[in-house]
């Protein structure tokens, strides 16, 4: 049952990802990207990462995509501007290099025996259930330091974004 859903989400993810990078129109690209984020959230659910699935939908498909759409609308690109930006220009070499990278990754997984039914099996244990409570404990105990640093990181981003988008220097 899980297997069938996995393949379903995998297909959805791949197709929506491909569509997201090939659409000429930035708005439809952003919408397809949102679909792919939802597919990822679906896989998270399958892997018992329930909290992350919610975060993925809220933050990515929600907040970040809205931000994208907002900026696209703000820029108010005219039709001729969009025409200049034709579809993707794929160079054979670029695709080959990307495929080479993927090949390297797959080869690594093979060498590590990750496709092996026994070695690579995903054990659905109780410890790895990513619920709010079970994630909160390590996040605020073990990983409180990165958490604090991340808060400064967000502060930097806020300060920077405000600085850069202010109208002009006088």
């Amino acid at each position, binding site marked *: 049952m899980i*297997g069938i859903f*996995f393949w379903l989400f*995998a297909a959805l993810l*791949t197709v929506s*990802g491909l569509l*997201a*990078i090939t*659409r000429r129109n*930035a708005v439809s*690209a*952003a919408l397809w990207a949102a679909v792919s*984020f939802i597919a*990822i959230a679906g*896989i998270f659910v399958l892997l*018992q*990462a329930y909290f*992350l699935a919610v975060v*993925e939908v809220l*933050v*990515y498909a929600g907040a*970040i995509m809205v*931000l*994208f759409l907002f*900026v696209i609308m703000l*820029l108010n690109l005219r039709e001729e*501007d969009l025409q*200049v*930006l*034709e579809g*993707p*220009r*794929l*160079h054979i070499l*670029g695709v080959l290099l*990307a*495929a080479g*990278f*993927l090949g390297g*990754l*797959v080869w690594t*997984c093979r060498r590590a025996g*990750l496709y*092996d039914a026994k070695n*690579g*099996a*995903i*054990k*659905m*244990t109780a*410890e*790895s259930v*990513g619920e709010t409570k*079970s*994630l909160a404990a390590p996040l605020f105990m073990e990983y409180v330091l990165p958490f604090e640093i*991340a808060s400064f990181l*967000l502060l930097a*981003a806020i300060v920077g*974004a405000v600085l*850069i*988008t202010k109208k002009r220097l006088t």
Partner: protein
Amino acid sequence: MTVGHLITLSGVLFTIGMVGVMSRRNILIVLLSVELMLNAVALAFVGFGAWRGNLDGQIMVFFAITVAAAEVAVGLAMVIALFRLRLTVDTDRVSLLKD
């Protein structure tokens, strides 16, 4: 379904994002592609975490999402600033700095 398949799926999405960064001229879609790549990595973390049976991977995804959000915010701010100055979002036309 093994962890190998999960990681491969994540690799496929990563590669799709990579191709997007390499081949698109619209800077907004380039940023979008980078987001796809970071999401692919999130998938890899969760996949490895499920395989290993611990939660550290999921914690890491948390930080990855934070960083992705921060980068997108800064990136989009620059796109707005660029558009104000040059009225374009075409990366090929943003090439004053070269040689």
